[in-house]
Protein backbone atom coordinates (compact mmCIF):
# COMPACT_ATOMS: atom_id res chain seq x y z
CA UNK A 1 0.00 0.00 0.00
CA UNK A 2 2.70 2.46 0.99
CA UNK A 3 4.55 1.43 -2.14
CA UNK A 4 1.58 2.31 -4.35
CA UNK A 5 1.21 5.55 -2.44
CA UNK A 6 4.88 6.31 -2.96
CA UNK A 7 4.58 5.64 -6.67
CA UNK A 8 1.53 7.85 -6.91
CA UNK A 9 3.29 10.60 -4.99
CA UNK A 10 6.29 10.43 -7.31
CA UNK A 11 4.01 10.54 -10.31
CA UNK A 12 2.09 13.58 -9.08
CA UNK A 13 5.41 15.26 -8.25
CA UNK A 14 6.65 14.75 -11.78
CA UNK A 15 3.43 16.22 -13.18
CA UNK A 16 3.63 19.29 -10.97
CA UNK A 17 7.36 19.65 -11.50
CA UNK A 18 7.13 19.88 -15.26
CA UNK A 19 5.61 23.34 -15.33
CA UNK A 20 7.32 26.56 -14.32
CA UNK A 21 7.16 30.25 -15.11
CA UNK A 22 8.52 29.61 -18.60
CA UNK A 23 5.45 27.57 -19.53
CA UNK A 24 3.05 30.00 -17.89
CA UNK A 25 4.43 32.91 -19.89
CA UNK A 26 5.54 31.42 -23.19
CA UNK A 27 2.68 28.95 -23.66
CA UNK A 28 0.08 31.69 -23.21
CA UNK A 29 2.01 33.98 -25.53
CA UNK A 30 2.34 31.29 -28.17
CA UNK A 31 -1.30 30.24 -27.80
CA UNK A 32 -2.55 33.77 -28.34
CA UNK A 33 -0.41 34.31 -31.42
CA UNK A 34 -0.02 30.91 -33.07
CA UNK A 35 -2.83 28.85 -31.55
CA UNK A 36 -1.79 25.25 -31.09
CA UNK A 37 0.43 25.23 -34.16
CA UNK A 38 3.52 24.97 -31.91
CA UNK A 39 2.19 22.12 -29.77
CA UNK A 40 4.56 19.76 -31.59
CA UNK A 41 7.51 21.59 -30.00
CA UNK A 42 6.20 20.73 -26.54
CA UNK A 43 6.05 17.07 -27.58
CA UNK A 44 9.60 17.21 -28.99
CA UNK A 45 10.83 18.96 -25.83
CA UNK A 46 8.98 16.49 -23.65
CA UNK A 47 10.64 13.44 -25.20
CA UNK A 48 13.98 15.26 -25.02
CA UNK A 49 13.68 16.13 -21.36
CA UNK A 50 12.60 12.57 -20.51
CA UNK A 51 15.68 11.12 -22.22
CA UNK A 52 18.01 13.73 -20.85
CA UNK A 53 16.82 13.87 -17.25
CA UNK A 54 16.67 10.13 -16.76
CA UNK A 55 20.09 9.70 -18.42
CA UNK A 56 21.68 12.21 -16.04
CA UNK A 57 19.97 10.56 -13.07
CA UNK A 58 21.27 7.16 -14.13
CA UNK A 59 24.80 8.45 -14.71
CA UNK A 60 24.85 9.88 -11.21
CA UNK A 61 23.26 6.87 -9.54
CA UNK A 62 25.67 4.43 -11.19
CA UNK A 63 28.91 6.41 -11.16
CA UNK A 64 28.16 8.24 -7.88
CA UNK A 65 29.42 11.39 -9.59
CA UNK A 66 27.28 14.49 -10.07
CA UNK A 67 26.90 16.25 -13.40
CA UNK A 68 29.30 19.11 -12.87
CA UNK A 69 32.06 16.98 -11.37
CA UNK A 70 31.89 14.98 -14.58
CA UNK A 71 31.74 18.05 -16.80
CA UNK A 72 34.94 19.39 -15.27
CA UNK A 73 36.65 16.03 -15.47
CA UNK A 74 35.72 15.49 -19.10
CA UNK A 75 36.16 19.02 -20.43
CA UNK A 76 39.11 20.16 -18.33
CA UNK A 77 39.25 23.33 -16.25
CA UNK A 78 39.20 25.83 -19.10
CA UNK A 79 36.14 24.73 -21.08
CA UNK A 80 34.65 23.43 -17.85
CA UNK A 81 34.88 26.88 -16.30
CA UNK A 82 33.33 28.49 -19.39
CA UNK A 83 30.56 25.94 -19.20
CA UNK A 84 30.10 26.64 -15.49
CA UNK A 85 29.92 30.38 -16.12
CA UNK A 86 27.31 30.05 -18.84
CA UNK A 87 25.25 27.52 -16.91
CA UNK A 88 25.38 29.58 -13.74
CA UNK A 89 24.30 32.77 -15.50
CA UNK A 90 21.36 31.07 -17.17
CA UNK A 91 20.47 29.46 -13.90
CA UNK A 92 20.53 32.86 -12.26
CA UNK A 93 18.26 34.24 -14.98
CA UNK A 94 15.86 31.33 -14.55
CA UNK A 95 15.93 31.73 -10.78
CA UNK A 96 15.15 35.43 -11.05
CA UNK A 97 12.31 34.63 -13.44
CA UNK A 98 10.87 32.06 -11.05
CA UNK A 99 11.04 34.41 -8.05
CA UNK A 100 9.41 37.07 -10.22
CA UNK A 101 6.77 34.49 -11.13
CA UNK A 102 6.00 33.82 -7.47
CA UNK A 103 5.68 37.56 -6.87
CA UNK A 104 3.43 38.10 -9.90
CA UNK A 105 1.20 35.16 -8.97
CA UNK A 106 0.89 36.45 -5.42
CA UNK A 107 0.11 39.89 -6.79
CA UNK A 108 -2.82 38.41 -8.72
CA UNK A 109 -4.13 36.99 -5.46
CA UNK A 110 -3.47 40.04 -3.31
CA UNK A 111 -2.95 43.08 -5.58
CA UNK A 112 0.09 43.84 -3.42
CA UNK A 113 3.05 45.09 -5.47
CA UNK A 114 5.49 42.39 -6.59
CA UNK A 115 8.34 44.46 -5.15
CA UNK A 116 7.08 43.58 -1.68
CA UNK A 117 6.70 39.92 -2.56
CA UNK A 118 10.12 39.46 -4.16
CA UNK A 119 12.24 39.67 -0.97
CA UNK A 120 9.65 37.66 0.95
CA UNK A 121 9.61 34.94 -1.68
CA UNK A 122 13.41 34.80 -1.77
CA UNK A 123 13.54 34.57 2.01
CA UNK A 124 10.99 31.76 1.98
CA UNK A 125 13.08 29.89 -0.59
CA UNK A 126 16.18 30.25 1.54
CA UNK A 127 14.34 29.17 4.67
CA UNK A 128 13.03 26.03 2.99
CA UNK A 129 16.49 25.15 1.67
CA UNK A 130 18.00 25.90 5.07
CA UNK A 131 15.59 23.92 7.21
CA UNK A 132 13.28 21.58 5.32
CA UNK A 133 14.11 17.99 4.48
CA UNK A 134 15.04 17.31 0.88
CA UNK A 135 12.30 14.74 0.35
CA UNK A 136 9.66 17.16 1.62
CA UNK A 137 11.02 19.97 -0.51
CA UNK A 138 11.06 17.76 -3.57
CA UNK A 139 7.68 16.15 -3.14
CA UNK A 140 5.29 18.45 -1.34
CA UNK A 141 5.76 21.70 -3.24
CA UNK A 142 5.28 20.26 -6.74
CA UNK A 143 2.24 18.41 -5.44
CA UNK A 144 0.45 21.73 -5.07
CA UNK A 145 1.62 22.59 -8.57
CA UNK A 146 -0.80 19.90 -9.66
CA UNK A 147 -3.54 22.51 -9.17
CA UNK A 148 -2.52 23.80 -12.60
CA UNK A 149 -4.73 21.01 -13.95
CA UNK A 150 -7.24 23.86 -13.68
CA UNK A 151 -6.03 25.01 -17.09
CA UNK A 152 -7.06 21.65 -18.54
CA UNK A 153 -10.44 21.91 -16.84
CA UNK A 154 -10.84 25.38 -18.31
CA UNK A 155 -10.23 24.05 -21.82
CA UNK A 156 -13.09 21.57 -21.39
CA UNK A 157 -15.40 24.19 -19.89
CA UNK A 158 -14.69 26.46 -22.85
CA UNK A 159 -16.14 23.66 -25.04
CA UNK A 160 -14.06 24.65 -28.03
CA UNK A 161 -14.30 23.44 -31.60
CA UNK A 162 -12.12 20.38 -31.03
CA UNK A 163 -11.76 19.68 -34.72
CA UNK A 164 -10.32 23.12 -35.34
CA UNK A 165 -7.91 22.77 -32.40
CA UNK A 166 -6.70 19.39 -33.62
CA UNK A 167 -6.21 20.79 -37.10
CA UNK A 168 -3.97 23.48 -35.62
CA UNK A 169 -1.91 20.77 -33.93
CA UNK A 170 -1.76 18.42 -36.90
CA UNK A 171 -1.25 20.99 -39.64
CA UNK A 172 0.88 23.79 -38.20
CA UNK A 173 0.42 26.98 -40.18
CA UNK A 174 1.79 30.46 -39.57
CA UNK A 175 -0.96 33.08 -39.64
CA UNK A 176 -0.46 35.84 -42.24
CA UNK A 177 0.03 38.53 -39.53
CA UNK A 178 3.06 36.72 -38.17
CA UNK A 179 6.55 36.41 -39.59
CA UNK A 180 7.98 32.93 -40.15
CA UNK A 181 11.09 33.76 -38.13
CA UNK A 182 8.87 34.77 -35.19
CA UNK A 183 7.28 31.34 -35.39
CA UNK A 184 10.68 29.67 -35.18
CA UNK A 185 11.83 32.02 -32.44
CA UNK A 186 8.92 30.87 -30.30
CA UNK A 187 9.65 27.27 -31.27
CA UNK A 188 13.15 27.68 -29.78
CA UNK A 189 11.67 29.41 -26.70
CA UNK A 190 9.20 26.59 -26.09
CA UNK A 191 11.93 24.01 -26.57
CA UNK A 192 14.09 25.84 -24.01
CA UNK A 193 11.23 26.10 -21.56
CA UNK A 194 10.55 22.36 -21.80
CA UNK A 195 14.21 21.34 -21.52
CA UNK A 196 15.42 23.76 -18.84
CA UNK A 197 18.99 22.81 -17.90
CA UNK A 198 18.48 23.33 -14.15
CA UNK A 199 16.19 20.31 -14.13
CA UNK A 200 19.08 18.13 -15.25
CA UNK A 201 21.48 19.43 -12.62
CA UNK A 202 18.79 19.16 -9.99
CA UNK A 203 17.69 15.67 -10.96
CA UNK A 204 21.20 14.26 -11.08
CA UNK A 205 22.10 15.84 -7.74
CA UNK A 206 18.86 14.53 -6.27
CA UNK A 207 20.15 11.05 -7.08
CA UNK A 208 23.03 11.76 -4.68
CA UNK A 209 20.87 13.56 -2.11
CA UNK A 210 18.50 10.62 -1.89
CA UNK A 211 21.18 7.93 -2.32
CA UNK A 212 19.44 6.25 -5.21
CA UNK A 213 19.91 2.58 -5.82
CA UNK A 214 19.35 0.73 -9.08
CA UNK A 215 15.75 -0.03 -8.10
CA UNK A 216 15.07 3.58 -7.37
CA UNK A 217 16.39 4.59 -10.76
CA UNK A 218 13.76 2.39 -12.37
CA UNK A 219 11.08 3.96 -10.21
CA UNK A 220 12.23 7.47 -10.93
CA UNK A 221 12.33 6.64 -14.63
CA UNK A 222 8.74 5.47 -14.41
CA UNK A 223 7.74 8.67 -12.64
CA UNK A 224 9.37 10.82 -15.27
CA UNK A 225 8.01 8.82 -18.19
CA UNK A 226 4.46 8.91 -16.85
CA UNK A 227 4.39 12.24 -15.04
CA UNK A 228 6.05 14.53 -17.57
CA UNK A 229 3.61 13.74 -20.41
CA UNK A 230 0.72 14.75 -18.15
CA UNK A 231 2.66 17.90 -17.27
CA UNK A 232 3.13 18.57 -20.98
CA UNK A 233 -0.62 18.20 -21.52
CA UNK A 234 -1.25 20.83 -18.86
CA UNK A 235 1.35 22.98 -20.54
CA UNK A 236 -0.42 22.64 -23.89
CA UNK A 237 -3.75 23.40 -22.25
CA UNK A 238 -2.34 26.79 -21.17
CA UNK A 239 -1.74 27.48 -24.86
CA UNK A 240 -5.18 26.10 -25.74
CA UNK A 241 -6.91 28.47 -23.28
CA UNK A 242 -5.13 31.43 -24.85
CA UNK A 243 -5.84 30.13 -28.37
CA UNK A 244 -9.56 29.80 -27.69
CA UNK A 245 -10.20 33.03 -25.79
CA UNK A 246 -7.45 35.46 -26.75
CA UNK A 247 -6.37 34.61 -30.30
CA UNK A 248 -9.67 35.57 -32.02
CA UNK A 249 -9.26 39.07 -30.54
CA UNK A 250 -5.61 39.41 -31.61
CA UNK A 251 -4.46 39.83 -28.02
CA UNK A 252 -0.70 39.83 -27.47
CA UNK A 253 -0.07 38.23 -24.11
CA UNK A 254 2.33 40.37 -22.10
CA UNK A 255 1.59 39.41 -18.50
CA UNK A 256 0.32 36.63 -16.27
CA UNK A 257 -3.00 38.44 -15.91
CA UNK A 258 -3.74 37.44 -19.48
CA UNK A 259 -2.64 33.86 -18.85
CA UNK A 260 -5.39 33.46 -16.24
CA UNK A 261 -8.03 35.53 -18.08
CA UNK A 262 -9.57 32.50 -19.88
CA UNK A 263 -9.63 30.52 -16.64
CA UNK A 264 -11.69 33.15 -14.83
CA UNK A 265 -13.90 33.50 -17.89
CA UNK A 266 -15.24 29.94 -17.67
CA UNK A 267 -14.24 28.73 -14.24
CA UNK A 268 -15.08 31.75 -12.13
CA UNK A 269 -13.45 32.61 -8.83
CA UNK A 270 -13.12 29.01 -7.69
CA UNK A 271 -11.11 27.75 -10.66
CA UNK A 272 -9.12 30.97 -10.73
CA UNK A 273 -8.16 30.48 -7.07
CA UNK A 274 -7.15 26.87 -7.74
CA UNK A 275 -4.99 27.90 -10.68
CA UNK A 276 -3.38 30.71 -8.66
CA UNK A 277 -2.41 28.21 -5.96
CA UNK A 278 -0.93 26.04 -8.68
CA UNK A 279 1.00 28.94 -10.14
CA UNK A 280 2.51 29.95 -6.82
CA UNK A 281 3.44 26.34 -6.05
CA UNK A 282 4.87 25.60 -9.49
CA UNK A 283 7.03 28.72 -9.55
CA UNK A 284 8.06 28.22 -5.93
CA UNK A 285 9.05 24.62 -6.64
CA UNK A 286 11.00 25.65 -9.71
CA UNK A 287 12.66 28.46 -7.75
CA UNK A 288 13.76 25.96 -5.10
CA UNK A 289 15.16 23.62 -7.72
CA UNK A 290 16.99 26.31 -9.66
CA UNK A 291 18.42 27.84 -6.46
CA UNK A 292 19.73 24.47 -5.36
CA UNK A 293 20.99 23.84 -8.89
CA UNK A 294 23.13 26.99 -8.76
CA UNK A 295 24.68 25.78 -5.50
CA UNK A 296 25.17 22.30 -6.93
CA UNK A 297 26.92 23.46 -10.11
CA UNK A 298 29.45 25.67 -8.33
CA UNK A 299 30.17 23.30 -5.46
CA UNK A 300 30.54 20.31 -7.78
CA UNK A 301 32.86 22.16 -10.11
CA UNK A 302 35.20 23.25 -7.31
CA UNK A 303 34.89 19.98 -5.42
CA UNK A 304 33.34 21.53 -2.31
CA UNK A 305 31.22 19.61 0.09
CA UNK A 306 27.57 20.03 -0.95
CA UNK A 307 24.08 18.73 -0.49
CA UNK A 308 21.09 19.02 1.75
CA UNK A 309 21.75 15.62 3.27
CA UNK A 310 24.61 17.34 5.10
CA UNK A 311 23.99 19.90 7.80
CA UNK A 312 24.45 23.47 6.59
CA UNK A 313 27.69 23.88 8.53
CA UNK A 314 29.11 20.81 6.86
CA UNK A 315 28.49 22.29 3.44
CA UNK A 316 29.31 25.89 4.31
CA UNK A 317 30.46 27.14 0.94
CA UNK A 318 27.49 25.46 -0.76
CA UNK A 319 25.04 27.26 1.50
CA UNK A 320 26.89 30.56 1.17
CA UNK A 321 26.70 30.22 -2.63
CA UNK A 322 22.95 29.73 -2.36
CA UNK A 323 22.54 32.80 -0.17
CA UNK A 324 24.62 34.94 -2.52
CA UNK A 325 22.78 33.64 -5.59
CA UNK A 326 19.43 34.50 -4.03
CA UNK A 327 20.66 37.97 -3.15
CA UNK A 328 21.79 38.54 -6.74
CA UNK A 329 18.40 37.29 -7.94
CA UNK A 330 16.63 39.82 -5.70
CA UNK A 331 18.99 42.51 -6.99
CA UNK A 332 18.16 41.69 -10.61
CA UNK A 333 14.42 41.88 -9.96
CA UNK A 334 14.62 45.02 -7.83
CA UNK A 335 16.01 46.96 -10.80
CA UNK A 336 12.38 46.99 -11.91
CA UNK A 337 12.89 44.71 -14.90
CA UNK A 338 9.70 42.92 -15.97
CA UNK A 339 9.89 39.29 -14.75
CA UNK A 340 7.93 38.24 -17.82
CA UNK A 341 10.70 39.58 -20.03
CA UNK A 342 13.33 37.92 -17.84
CA UNK A 343 11.46 34.67 -18.38
CA UNK A 344 11.35 35.13 -22.15
CA UNK A 345 15.10 35.69 -22.24
CA UNK A 346 15.82 32.87 -19.80
CA UNK A 347 14.03 30.24 -21.89
CA UNK A 348 15.82 31.26 -25.09
CA UNK A 349 19.22 31.18 -23.43
CA UNK A 350 18.33 27.83 -21.87
CA UNK A 351 17.89 26.51 -25.39
CA UNK A 352 21.14 28.12 -26.51
CA UNK A 353 23.13 26.60 -23.63
CA UNK A 354 21.58 23.13 -23.79
CA UNK A 355 24.52 21.43 -25.58
CA UNK A 356 26.81 22.48 -22.70
CA UNK A 357 25.20 20.02 -20.31
CA UNK A 358 23.69 17.63 -22.81
CA UNK A 359 26.87 16.62 -24.59
CA UNK A 360 29.07 15.70 -21.59
CA UNK A 361 26.27 13.63 -20.06
CA UNK A 362 25.74 11.78 -23.31
CA UNK A 363 29.48 11.05 -23.55
CA UNK A 364 29.76 9.82 -19.97
CA UNK A 365 26.59 7.72 -20.27
CA UNK A 366 28.52 5.76 -22.92
CA UNK A 367 31.78 5.53 -20.98
CA UNK A 368 32.24 2.11 -19.34
CA UNK A 369 34.88 3.45 -16.93
CA UNK A 370 32.08 5.43 -15.24
CA UNK A 371 29.08 3.29 -16.07
CA UNK A 372 30.42 -0.29 -16.10
CA UNK A 373 27.93 -2.46 -17.96
CA UNK A 374 25.15 0.09 -17.54
CA UNK A 375 26.12 2.27 -20.49
CA UNK A 376 23.41 3.55 -22.83
CA UNK A 377 21.62 0.95 -24.89
CA UNK A 378 21.53 1.19 -28.65
CA UNK A 379 17.93 2.44 -28.88
CA UNK A 380 18.51 5.11 -26.27
CA UNK A 381 21.67 6.22 -28.06
CA UNK A 382 19.74 6.42 -31.31
CA UNK A 383 17.23 8.79 -29.73
CA UNK A 384 20.00 10.65 -27.94
CA UNK A 385 21.83 11.29 -31.21
CA UNK A 386 18.68 12.61 -32.89
CA UNK A 387 18.24 14.96 -29.94
CA UNK A 388 21.86 16.01 -30.08
CA UNK A 389 21.16 17.33 -33.58
CA UNK A 390 17.94 19.06 -32.48
CA UNK A 391 19.65 20.58 -29.45
CA UNK A 392 22.54 21.88 -31.56
CA UNK A 393 20.23 23.36 -34.20
CA UNK A 394 18.11 25.11 -31.56
CA UNK A 395 21.26 26.36 -29.88
CA UNK A 396 22.78 27.80 -33.05
CA UNK A 397 19.50 29.29 -34.28
CA UNK A 398 18.63 30.92 -30.95
CA UNK A 399 20.62 34.16 -31.07
CA UNK A 400 20.09 35.02 -34.77
CA UNK A 401 16.36 34.41 -34.41
CA UNK A 402 16.26 36.58 -31.31
CA UNK A 403 17.94 39.46 -33.14
CA UNK A 404 15.88 39.13 -36.31
CA UNK A 405 12.56 39.03 -34.51
CA UNK A 406 13.45 41.62 -31.87
CA UNK A 407 12.89 38.89 -29.26
CA UNK A 408 9.52 37.99 -30.71
CA UNK A 409 8.14 41.53 -30.57
Amino acid at each position, binding site marked *: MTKVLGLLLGLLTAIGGFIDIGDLVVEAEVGSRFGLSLAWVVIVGLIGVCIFVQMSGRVTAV*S*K*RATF*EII*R*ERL*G*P*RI*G*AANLGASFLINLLTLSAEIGGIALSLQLASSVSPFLWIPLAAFAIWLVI*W*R*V*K*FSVLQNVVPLFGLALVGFGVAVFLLSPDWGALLRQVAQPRVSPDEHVSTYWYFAVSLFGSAMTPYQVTFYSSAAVEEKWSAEQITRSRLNVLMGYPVGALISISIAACAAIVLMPHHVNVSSLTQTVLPVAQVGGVLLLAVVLVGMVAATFGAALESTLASGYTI*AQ*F*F*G*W*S*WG*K*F*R*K*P*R*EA*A*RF*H*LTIIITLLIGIGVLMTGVDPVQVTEIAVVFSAIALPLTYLPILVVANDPS*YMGDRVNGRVLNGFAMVYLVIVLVASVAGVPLMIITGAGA
Partner: protein
Amino acid sequence: MIKRVIDARLHLLDRQVLDRNGIPISTVADLELTDVPFEQELTGSEPAPVIVNLLSGPVLATRVFGGRPPSSRWYRIPWNAITEIGVAVDLAVEGDTLDVTWVERWIRDRVIGRIPGGSGKRSASDRPDVRAERTEGGDT
Protein backbone atom coordinates in the same frame (compact mmCIF):
# COMPACT_ATOMS: atom_id res chain seq x y z
CA MET B 1 50.08 -4.20 -3.60
CA ILE B 2 48.69 -4.30 -7.10
CA LYS B 3 50.50 -2.16 -9.62
CA ARG B 4 48.39 -0.11 -12.00
CA VAL B 5 49.29 2.42 -14.68
CA ILE B 6 47.68 5.77 -14.00
CA ASP B 7 47.44 8.54 -16.53
CA ALA B 8 47.89 11.71 -14.51
CA ARG B 9 45.80 13.78 -16.89
CA LEU B 10 43.04 11.22 -17.19
CA HIS B 11 42.84 9.75 -13.70
CA LEU B 12 44.16 12.49 -11.44
CA LEU B 13 43.64 15.99 -12.76
CA ASP B 14 40.21 17.45 -12.00
CA ARG B 15 39.20 14.45 -9.96
CA GLN B 16 37.15 14.92 -6.81
CA VAL B 17 39.15 14.45 -3.59
CA LEU B 18 37.31 12.85 -0.66
CA ASP B 19 38.56 12.69 2.92
CA ARG B 20 38.44 9.60 5.11
CA ASN B 21 34.78 10.24 5.92
CA GLY B 22 33.85 10.57 2.27
CA ILE B 23 33.43 14.34 2.53
CA PRO B 24 34.40 16.26 -0.61
CA ILE B 25 37.51 18.35 0.03
CA SER B 26 38.50 19.77 -3.31
CA THR B 27 39.38 18.74 -6.81
CA VAL B 28 42.89 17.98 -7.99
CA ALA B 29 43.85 21.23 -9.67
CA ASP B 30 47.47 20.33 -10.39
CA LEU B 31 50.32 18.08 -9.33
CA GLU B 32 53.68 18.85 -7.75
CA LEU B 33 56.56 16.73 -9.01
CA THR B 34 60.11 16.34 -7.83
CA ASP B 35 62.55 18.41 -9.84
CA VAL B 36 64.48 17.12 -12.78
CA PRO B 37 67.79 18.86 -13.53
CA PHE B 38 67.05 22.14 -15.26
CA GLU B 39 68.81 23.63 -18.32
CA GLN B 40 71.34 20.89 -18.74
CA GLU B 41 71.71 17.76 -20.80
CA LEU B 42 69.96 14.78 -19.29
CA THR B 43 72.20 11.76 -19.04
CA GLY B 44 69.36 9.31 -18.48
CA SER B 45 70.66 8.31 -15.09
CA GLU B 46 68.65 10.89 -13.12
CA PRO B 47 65.76 9.51 -11.07
CA ALA B 48 62.38 9.89 -12.81
CA PRO B 49 60.23 12.70 -11.37
CA VAL B 50 57.88 11.55 -8.63
CA ILE B 51 54.54 13.07 -7.62
CA VAL B 52 54.91 14.46 -4.11
CA ASN B 53 51.74 16.49 -3.68
CA LEU B 54 48.32 17.04 -5.13
CA LEU B 55 47.72 20.76 -5.52
CA SER B 56 44.56 22.76 -5.13
CA GLY B 57 43.39 26.32 -4.66
CA PRO B 58 44.52 29.27 -6.79
CA VAL B 59 46.50 26.89 -8.98
CA LEU B 60 43.26 26.27 -10.85
CA ALA B 61 43.12 29.83 -12.12
CA THR B 62 46.55 29.45 -13.67
CA ARG B 63 45.48 26.31 -15.47
CA VAL B 64 42.59 28.28 -16.93
CA PHE B 65 44.36 31.54 -17.68
CA GLY B 66 48.02 30.51 -17.78
CA GLY B 67 50.90 31.61 -15.55
CA ARG B 68 52.16 30.12 -12.32
CA PRO B 69 51.38 31.16 -8.75
CA PRO B 70 54.20 31.42 -6.18
CA SER B 71 54.68 28.13 -4.40
CA SER B 72 53.73 29.79 -1.11
CA ARG B 73 50.17 29.98 -2.45
CA TRP B 74 49.92 26.26 -3.19
CA TYR B 75 47.68 24.09 -1.09
CA ARG B 76 49.25 20.69 -0.90
CA ILE B 77 47.72 17.32 -0.23
CA PRO B 78 50.58 14.87 0.35
CA TRP B 79 50.71 11.94 -2.05
CA ASN B 80 51.13 9.42 0.75
CA ALA B 81 47.75 10.45 2.22
CA ILE B 82 46.00 8.84 -0.74
CA THR B 83 44.38 5.49 -0.13
CA GLU B 84 42.71 4.91 -3.46
CA ILE B 85 42.40 6.42 -6.91
CA GLY B 86 39.10 5.48 -8.50
CA VAL B 87 36.30 7.68 -9.83
CA ALA B 88 37.42 9.90 -6.95
CA VAL B 89 40.66 10.26 -5.00
CA ASP B 90 40.24 8.95 -1.46
CA LEU B 91 42.38 10.20 1.42
CA ALA B 92 43.29 8.61 4.73
CA VAL B 93 43.11 11.91 6.65
CA GLU B 94 40.36 14.17 7.94
CA GLY B 95 39.67 17.07 5.61
CA ASP B 96 39.75 19.55 8.50
CA THR B 97 43.43 18.85 9.10
CA LEU B 98 44.39 20.01 5.62
CA ASP B 99 45.29 23.61 4.72
CA VAL B 100 43.19 23.43 1.60
CA THR B 101 39.95 23.44 3.60
CA TRP B 102 40.62 26.70 5.42
CA VAL B 103 38.07 28.67 3.37
CA GLU B 104 35.41 26.07 4.09
CA ARG B 105 36.26 26.14 7.80
CA TRP B 106 36.35 29.93 7.89
CA ILE B 107 32.94 30.27 6.21
CA ARG B 108 31.58 27.52 8.42
CA ASP B 109 32.73 29.12 11.65
CA ARG B 110 32.27 32.79 10.77
CA VAL B 111 29.20 32.78 8.53
CA ILE B 112 27.09 29.65 8.20
CA GLY B 113 27.59 28.44 11.78
CA ARG B 114 26.34 31.79 13.08
CA ILE B 115 23.03 31.75 11.22
CA PRO B 116 20.32 30.23 13.44
CA GLY B 117 19.91 26.58 12.55
CA GLY B 118 23.20 26.51 10.71
CA SER B 119 25.02 24.39 13.23
CA GLY B 120 22.31 21.81 12.65
CA LYS B 121 21.88 20.73 16.26
CA ARG B 122 18.12 20.51 15.81
CA SER B 123 18.22 20.55 12.05
CA ALA B 124 15.30 18.87 10.33
CA SER B 125 17.52 18.23 7.35
CA ASP B 126 19.78 16.07 9.43
CA ARG B 127 19.83 12.46 8.34
CA PRO B 128 21.30 10.43 11.17
CA ASP B 129 21.83 7.43 8.92
CA VAL B 130 24.33 9.32 6.80
CA ARG B 131 26.96 9.42 9.45
CA ALA B 132 27.43 9.97 13.12
CA GLU B 133 27.55 13.43 14.66
CA ARG B 134 31.01 14.78 14.18
CA THR B 135 32.88 16.56 16.89
CA GLU B 136 33.10 20.30 16.50
CA GLY B 137 35.96 21.23 14.22
CA GLY B 138 38.58 23.29 15.99
CA ASP B 139 39.05 26.94 15.09
CA THR B 140 42.20 27.80 13.25
